[in-house]
């Protein structure tokens, strides 16, 4: 199935793109997605995505239980560094 990974702000700069289309096996989890990304990105890029303060949203909802979430075709997975508005 196909999912899309989005990268914002400092992570967009680190990964050098704002979106990656990813082909992944049905029923894949976020852990599987990270493995896919690790295969395509440099080590320093993965380190940026793996930082403790990076939050992940699936279809624009924060995933609080983390890596266990099972993905579905067409899912949008966003990697977000710490936010600040105002």
């Amino acid at each position: 199935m196909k999912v899309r990974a989005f990268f914002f702000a400092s992570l967009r700069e680190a990964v050098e793109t704002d979106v990656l289309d990813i082909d992944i096996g049905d029923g894949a989890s976020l852990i599987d997605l990270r493995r896919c990304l690790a295969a395509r990105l440099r080590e320093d890029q993965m380190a940026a995505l793996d930082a403790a303060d990076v939050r992940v949203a699936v279809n624009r909802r924060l995933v609080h239980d983390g890596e266990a979430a099972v993905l579905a075709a067409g899912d949008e997975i966003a990697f977000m560094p710490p936010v600040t508005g105002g």
Partner: protein
Amino acid sequence: MSIRIQEDDFSLDREWDALRKRIGGSAGSIVAFAGLVRERARAGEEVSGLFLEHYPGMTESSMERIVEQARGRWPLQDVVVIHRVGDLRPGDQIVLVLVASAHRGAAFAGCEFVMDMLKTKAVFWKKEVRTGSKGTWVRSTGDDFERAKHWRNDGE
């Protein structure tokens, strides 16, 4: 009620007039907050501009949640939040929060709460751009987190 994200500048005047028309003689107090791009960063370095980024869809939800929380805590008659994104320059308006209430304490608290939450919870990213450097992504300060936290403990 209005929550918007836009690249264009906003007109306080237009928002204010529209708000006053909506509330008529029913609310006695309006509090407005506007955040402007400062020409100096926290450490004092000159800033040539600010770049603001958001996540369409998710950012709006984060703002709606903040406004809902404010309305749950205080009797607010109307709330307007406008947040700009894109490239801004020193002196430019970044954000506008307008709160109307029958009680001035509620209007002040509601407006300040929304701002404190925007600083720590709203899905935006800000980069300070400096002449001759790559720029720095801004993070909420310890003070921002303290302010956000104080609303949790405080009965105000």
